[in-house]
């Protein structure tokens, strides 16, 4: 039992590193403010997670904690709500979706739902962006690096301002 707990703990530590570190929510919220047209007022963002997936749930909790009662992003104020993988059909109700780590197998479904609902998907998992399944990837260490998938953005009909795109890496 103790051995299993230790293994689970190690897995919890290792998986986020493999899938990308914790999402920098402050940067993610600011990314939303560079959407065209810019969001205004209260903006609901989905936290896409998988119940029972320890890595995903931990990331979701971390995002919720960072957002708190809401984060200002330009003229918008971003609030979050958890959306389990099983409810991706509701993703179209959101302007943005923070895709938690540990959802590699679910990414095709998330991408399809985001494309249907014109939702910008933001993640710390660079592989999701490399595979054109997430629109924006954010890494924070040693410094902020933002990657935008042109194909994923086009599929989700998401547009950013040109000044923003000139500062990020577009793939």
């Amino acid at each position: 039992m103790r051995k299993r707990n230790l293994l689970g703990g190690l897995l919890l530590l290792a998986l986020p590193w493999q899938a990308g570190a914790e999402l920098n929510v402050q940067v993610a919220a600011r990314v939303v403010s560079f959407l065209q047209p810019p969001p205004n007022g209260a903006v609901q963002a989905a936290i896409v997670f998988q119940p029972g997936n320890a890595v995903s749930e931990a990331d979701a909790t971390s995002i919720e904690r960072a957002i708190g009662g809401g984060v200002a992003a330009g003229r918008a104020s971003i609030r979050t709500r958890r959306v389990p993988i099983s409810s991706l059909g509701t993703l179209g109700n959101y302007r943005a979706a923070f895709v938690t780590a540990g959802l590699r197998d679910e990414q095709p479904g998330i991408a399809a739902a985001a494309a249907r609902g014109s939702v910008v998907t933001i993640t710390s998992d660079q592989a999701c962006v490399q595979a054109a399944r997430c629109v924006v990837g954010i890494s924070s260490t040693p410094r902020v690096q933002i990657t935008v998938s042109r194909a994923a953005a086009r599929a989700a009909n998401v547009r950013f301002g040109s000044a923003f795109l000139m500062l990020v890496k577009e793939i």
Partner: protein
Amino acid sequence: MAAAQTVDYSALAELMGEPVTTSVIGKPQRASELPASAVIITREQIARSPARDIPGLLQTYSGIDVNRWTAGQSDVAVRGGVQTYNARLLVLVDGRQVYLDHYGMTNWNLLGVALEDIQQIELIRGPASALFGFNAASGVVNIITRRSSDKASLTASAELGGHDYSRVAGALQLPISEQIGVKLSAGRLREDERAIRAPLLAPEMVPDVQSDHVAGSVTGRFDQTEVTLDGGYAENRQAEYLPSQYISNQHYRIGHASAGLKHDTDWGGLSFGAYANWLRADYGLSEAAPTRDVDNTAATKFANRIIVAQGSALIRLDGNNTLRVGAEYRNNRLRSPAQFSQTVSYDVGSANLMADLHPAEAITVTLAGRLDRLSLSQSGVIVQPAFDAPSAFDRDLTRFSFNAATVIRMGETGQLRLNGGRGYQLPPLADFGLRIPIQTPSPVPVFIAGRPETRPVPVWSAEVGYNRAIGEVRLETTAFWTRTEDAIATPGDGLQLDLVLTPAPLLVSRIRAVGSYTTYGAEAAVSGRYGPLSWRANYRYTHTDQTLPPITAPAPFALSPKSTTPRHKANLELGYDAGRWYATAIGRYTSSTRQFAFTTAPQLLLTPVNEAVALDARAGFKVHPGLELFAAGENLTLAGGAAVSPIPADRRVRGGLRVSL
């Protein structure tokens, strides 16, 4: 403000975790990825600095020499070439030139911008003519004011200090609707001149420094388009050392009007703008009897008007490669009774191209070129006796400027940079047509005069730099080389005279190209933060070789960068932020120099200026989130050489309040 998404420096800096600039190649770039050596001073740094003006802020960064010739007159030089009325640094406020073309100088008390309204100050070291054209010969300072916001805000300061110092300045932002915002700013400064003691020549009266400005802008953002209308007026009176190093009192008034349009597209952005600056400058104010008021009736008057229209397109070729295409037209006109004819003017047509390419993951190559074609002319009544044929002013000049850079990323946070270029310093309008009689014992009349044949001064530059961040510590090192050819100088003492028969004999001493000089050296800067403590240190070594006229008395020209540029400069800044209160202290070391000045004899001499360790400090306490009380002092150690001027520096202490609502 709604929709349009042009460059919002504040939002982009918050996003990327570091300042963002467009001043190097015209596209937004992170400070840590620039293909040139640059300084970006943020709004937060300005608010906590002991400095009370832009030269004071710039002087604590490596590679930048600031000479505070008088209490009001400062010159900023990049990597050597120190001289009064420095014509080698282009200074812009939101892209509009505030560099004054009549004499090729920047009057830092006439910028028409309040420190409280500044978002960030960007200084690019080295020639940047390929983007900005003539006069960005040794560098560019671009002052970015705050972008209009959808929230009403007021930032203002009121200060009082020794030497009859007083300053009130502020900026008010008022959103009119979702799309339209108005910004108003104003400022008023008064302070006494420093004591000018014999044997230095001093004007018969030395008035206090006065500087006032008002400015306003209206910005509208509609969908993906931003439109800005801007206007302002500024006035300044101060004692100054002229390029000849003769000291006199000047009065400046300048107005401007500008309009700009930026449009964001899926492939990049379009930018169009036009502006006009109107300058009236009175040189040689005297004291009116019996009122003892400052009198300009005997002053030499100049009226300079510049009109600029420019457009550019920034095109994203693919994910990471960018192309910028631009064109510009400018008309520059100087009217004065103290020149060849009533009006001397030129038109410049320019085209520029910049490519920012990423041939490999870790490599960035930037190439920029600009072609300027200038047509010089004169018109109106020719002042007699004339020393030049009118046809000498009918000249066309074509010059090509370029910048090239390769940046190689080394690891996650290291960056090696190789860059260089050639820029041009355009002769100021006065250098073409100036014509001033001077008093000498000679029975034959003597004039100081410009030369219509004067050519733009080429400035070559090469540098290699390495930047690296290690945790919270950032290291920047650069080795640089700069060569200035055909350097222009104004006659000083021991005049080199040409005999002109008009038919009566006259003696004329010309403003002319007198030689060349080369500057090389190294800069190192390190900065970091540990909890509430921030720190920053830098050092620069500069060596100058020159082939210029002799500097032994009588010196015919007041130009000797080897003598006037400090060989060593070092700065150390420590800051502590405890939330409600903060403190900033800066130590500045400048090695000894010699600076030109006329003595009471009158004779032009190189005056020794001692090495100096100056201490500046500022402490503030927030009695309310929007109200701060502060005290600040410059040169607390009373180091005479801290101003790097023949006139010794004094200590200036002030206190005041700052409101941010």
